[in-house]
């Protein structure tokens, strides 16, 4: 079992310009911008489960990411 990040599209404020998780995820090409829905999207196969995206999203009080088991 692995932990991976999951974005709740309802809570994500990327349409207002937030890119925090995309900026700080240590893995390249791992959090992508869905430019039609304007939400951050996790590429699960590249996620190492570090939880840094949760930390930066929560610190900005968006609380849009949680870790889920796979």
């Amino acid at each position, binding site marked *: 079992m692995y932990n991976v990040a999951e974005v709740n599209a309802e809570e994500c404020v990327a349409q207002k310009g937030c890119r925090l998780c995309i900026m700080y995820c*240590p*893995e*390249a090409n791992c959090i*992508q911008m869905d430019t039609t829905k304007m939400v951050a999207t996790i590429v699960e196969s590249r996620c190492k*489960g570090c*939880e*840094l995206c949760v*930390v930066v999203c929560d610190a900005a009080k968006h609380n849009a990411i949680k870790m889920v088991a796979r």
Partner: protein
Amino acid sequence: MGKKIQINKEFVDIMPQDYLDLVETGTFETPNRGWKDFGTATELIAEHSLCAGCPESIAFRHIMASIPNPEDTVMVGSTGCTSLVFPMIAVHNIHSLFGNQNAIATGLKRALAVRFPDRVKDVIVLAGDGATVDIGLDMTLQSWFRKERFTTICFDNELYANTGGQESGLMQKGFLAKMAPVGKKFEKVRLPEIARESGCDYVAIMTASKPSLVEKVIKQAVLIAREVGPTYIQIYTPCILEIGKQSMEGLQEMRTSEAPGERFKFREFISPEAQSFLDGLAEKKKAEKLATSGATS
């Protein structure tokens, strides 16, 4: 799709999707590339085996997004955790023998000038603190004394991470590590000051906590190395594994260490020659802006 980076038509049907994405949306030949491309353009790094949450990965992403001309850049790496990333980047690179990176870069920069006299080729060294300050110190300093025109980036995690936590010249005094149980007896080597005194025209010490600052520093360092003289950037990329931090704590560790009075508070040294070069660039940008706004109004 850029002119210099193209895919051979015969191979299109057999290449993996990641490769096709890179050719299609990688930011080669893109003026003003930077971290703002994250999330929409394909980054120039593929999956690698650094630990989950490792700040070296964060810094590597920011650097690869910022180098001004990736299609005309050759990077030189050395042994250490960074060497786990080099095989996965989409920029030409050479793995040097541990510590030899600045000697290799010297020869490379000169050879590129002979081989491509009409093209600008940037050389960037990226190595750990053990490679830069301990085993490679001779090569590091000699390249600066000779004013070799390339950029040296040191990923300073204050120990030998890849071999399990031995003492390094950049480790803090008194620090205990798994393979350095007595505690370091000497001060952290002041390499930024040594770099300034040894001939570097641009020196910066920082952490990887702010992508926009990393971008600005990398661009300045590469352009100054191209036109003026050697440049040196020391970035704190804490080894969360060896300092006992959780995978999500690397960013906070960098922020704490760059607070006023702390050892990684952002500092920059710019020689007068480099400063007038940067002023010239700023002037040019201003003039261009004026010209375009004049054209549209």
